[in-house]
């Protein structure tokens, strides 16, 4: 029995997916319940890591890269930096109506699940999304663009304008933030020269 036969016979992929989704659910519940903010920040990093592993199992490696870099990397570092400026336990708040919130969340979740009943089966080759441009990308992207990776060819060539817009937006946002917040003020107060410094 080959390894592939063993995997499909024991439904190993489905088991791994279910186990990782269970991990994510347990981590999310722990994030909501814990009061120690340092542990919460670490748990959000763990959540992103398990999500990245799930994306790898689902064959979306580029999404896994992004999730690991942003979620487990940058977001955790930023939150730890913020945590250095505040207290490390969450302030206990009382009040608020938990029952109404639970009802609203249940109704929204039920409606969302009901909406998935009309969707095609996961990975169905005859689903409309696999018949529009995906065959052209798969068949012709190597000849037309010369890029070996299909995802890269879609990002950089077929939808190049979208990528350009994204780059514009991120650059403008960073430039705007630096312009508004400015640089750190100089230590010495300038008495006689009323210059224009931030």
């Amino acid at each position, binding site marked *: 029995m080959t390894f592939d036969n063993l995997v499909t016979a024991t439904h190993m992929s489905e088991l791994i997916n279910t186990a990782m989704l269970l991990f994510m659910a347990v981590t999310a519940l722990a994030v909501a319940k814990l009061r120690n903010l340092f542990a919460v920040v670490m748990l959000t990093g763990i959540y992103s890591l398990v999500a990245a592993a799930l994306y790898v199992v689902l064959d979306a490696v580029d999404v896994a890269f992004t999730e690991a870099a942003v979620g487990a990397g940058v977001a955790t570092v930023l939150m730890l930096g913020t945590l250095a400026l505040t207290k490390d336990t969450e302030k206990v708040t009382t009040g608020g109506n938990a029952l109404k919130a639970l009802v609203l969340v249940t109704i929204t979740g039920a409606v969302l699940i009901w909406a998935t009943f009309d969707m095609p089966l996961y990975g169905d080759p005859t689903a409309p999304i696999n018949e529009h441009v995906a065959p052209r990308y798969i068949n012709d992207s190597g000849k037309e663009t010369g890029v070996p990776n299909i995802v890269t060819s879609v990002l950089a060539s077929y939808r190049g304008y979208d990528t350009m817009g994204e780059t514009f937006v991120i650059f403008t946002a960073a430039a*705007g933030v630096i*312009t*508004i*917040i*400015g640089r750190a003020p100089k230590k010495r107060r300038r008495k*006689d*020269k*009323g*210059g*224009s*410094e*931030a």
Partner: protein
Amino acid sequence: MQATLDILTWACIAIGAFFLIVGAIGMIRFDDLYARMHAASLIDTMGLGMVMLGLCFQAGWTLTTAKLLMILAFVFFTSPTSTYALVRASLAAGVLPEVAAEGRERAKRASEASG
């Protein structure tokens, strides 16, 4: 009818472009953090609002107009919230706004020093 809509669109987009440029110049040239944030808020409200309004005139009564108005509503919710959070954080960090009298003093000292 189409000509009227075109004129309205031109007017709205021109006014929006004017506010965008003014906001951008203010964002760069102002000395005070709070003045810069006020200039940036011009971009989000008048600049974006006027340009979107002009585009709504062009789109007519279609789904595109609804989407544009939803984008506008979303920005009107998030932009003041983020500005408020930023200003509150600056005040908590100890950055004080420059009052008008101090600004005039500084300008007078600058002109005396250079003049």
